């Protein structure tokens, strides 16, 4: 079990870690290898482990309607991220510097919007959108995604602002700079890495959404996660396309997660409550 921390892991422990890793990741790797198999190979029994990979599944995705849904995903995720940052970063700064009463109540109220199960938002959004014609539009998706990305920005950015020494700001204020100038020219550059990490997490949350897109889009604004599921249809399951589509949907996630792995925990737990 857990003794004192060793400087280097024992060979036995390394083997155990390796085996655990292979077992844990094999379901994921199975999908990945399937995306490079033709449909005949996928259905072959026993499943061949060594085969000549083909890009045929990816090519057929790119020629089909999937490409458009991929673009929809990109647009709704990036626009909602941008909107949430523009609104949320100044708000987080204000909250971090605000000593007044009601700060905790306000922060908690903001957070409640993130704890709610998605269905709580889908019903009203669906009805509103039906009424004002935002169903099946990227704009509609951007607005919903902003509703859960904005609280994330406000919660994640506060600790970053708190690391900026207040003496630095005070000096500039005494020298006659306005609060706005201090914020834009002194504070913002110092928290740039935090903004980048928050932006990536916002993007991932919007990108990963399945539920809202399932209900609020049909064909025009359909996102990649919903499009992949549509390959499971009544005529039969196009496993090659499903595997390739699934791999494409997870590609940006894997790349970005590596970039922000240090901030992953705070971002994911802001989805619940800060302990």
């Amino acid at each position, binding site marked *: 079990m857990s003794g004192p921390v060793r400087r280097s892991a024992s060979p036995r422990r390394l083997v155990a870690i390796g085996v655990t890793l292979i077992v844990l990741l094999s379901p994921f790797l199975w*999908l990945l290898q399937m995306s490079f198999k033709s449909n005949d190979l996928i259905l072959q029994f026993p499943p061949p482990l060594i085969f000549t990979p083909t890009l045929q599944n990816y090519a057929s995705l790119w020629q089909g309607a999937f490409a458009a849904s991929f673009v929809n995903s990109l647009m709704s995720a990036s626009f909602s991220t941008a909107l949430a940052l523009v609104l949320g970063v100044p708000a987080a700064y204000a909250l971090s510097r605000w000593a007044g009463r009601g700060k905790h109540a306000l922060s908690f109220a903001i957070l409640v919007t993130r704890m709610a199960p998605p269905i709580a938002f889908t019903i009203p959004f669906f009805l509103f959108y039906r009424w004002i014609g935002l169903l099946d539009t990227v704009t509609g998706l951007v607005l919903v995604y902003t*509703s859960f990305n904005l609280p994330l920005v*406000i919660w994640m950015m506060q600790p970053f602002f708190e690391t900026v020494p207040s003496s630095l700001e005070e000096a500039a204020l005494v020298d006659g700079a306005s609060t706005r100038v201090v914020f834009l020219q002194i504070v913002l550059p110092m928290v740039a890495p935090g903004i980048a990490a928050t932006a990536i997490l916002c993007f991932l949350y919007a990108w990963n959404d399945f539920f809202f897109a399932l209900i609020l889009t049909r064909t025009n604004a359909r996102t990649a996660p919903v499009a992949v599921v549509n390959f499971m249809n009544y005529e039969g399951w196009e496993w090659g396309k499903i595997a390739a589509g699934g791999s494409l949907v997870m590609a940006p996630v894997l790349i970005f997660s590596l970039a922000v792995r240090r901030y992953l925990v705070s971002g994911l737990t802001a989805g619940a409550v800060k*302990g």
Partner: protein
Amino acid sequence: MSGEGLVDAERRRFNRIALAPSLIVLFVIAGLPAIYLVVTSLTPFQLVNPGSSTDFSSPLRNYRLLPGDPRFVNSLWVQAKLSFWGVLLQVLLGMLLALLLHTQSRVVEFARTLFLIPMVLPPIVVAIIWKLIYTPDISPLYYAASLLNVTMPSLTSSVDFALTAIIIADTWEWMPFTFLMVLAALQTIPEEFSEAALVDGANRLQIFFYITLPFITPILVISGMFRLIDSVKAFPLVFLLTGGGPGSVTEVTNYYAYLLAFDFNEIGYSSSVTIVMLLLVVAVSLGVVWMGRRREAMA
């Protein structure tokens, strides 16, 4: 003195301007929908019957129906089973994984990131991965079982195994979360403690139960609560793996609310189901905040 007063006044003005847009937008895109959800829950609103959206003649009708709706009661029960076993497994396995990876070695530190993959994958991709594992024709799992001459039942369509199949997938997806939290807690334990215990002749099991476990218990509880709150969001798994079936063996409240609103067009009734679910989630969340505060007070 007066200069500081001016700075304070300007600061307050800046804060107001910085906060206002966010609060207005949040009110419009989160507050209003929440209020509207409450309003709809007081009506017998059905999409096919437009006038029903403003029928407030019997506002609490939906809520009175809930306790007598066997499907609703069943869905709470299914959710309770899914949450209980899921959280328990995720906390235990996450802890074991954290203990295994709690070592200062370059290779291991790199490997830690790979263990996080299931958690960051898009939930629908996780659902696809498990659909693949649970589909006999193409599943490596069924192939492995056939090699061992074991005939496996179809897990997702069996009354006995369907919920277990979802719990397994949910655990795979979220075990990395509890693992990360416990690992962070392990790193705060001062090394001297276990070193002193080793010198005194304690064995590893004793060190675990008397030093490590008391240290990480708060984080085990907190991460379990986080997972409990989020366990109502297992929608993609239920949607893709079982569709709530067979029968309603895997029909969690979230999925039942979805069916009510978007399959049966019972918007009003679905809203009341959602609100009850929301209240339960908020109650659990407040519990987490309270425990977090208590923990801070103890530290």
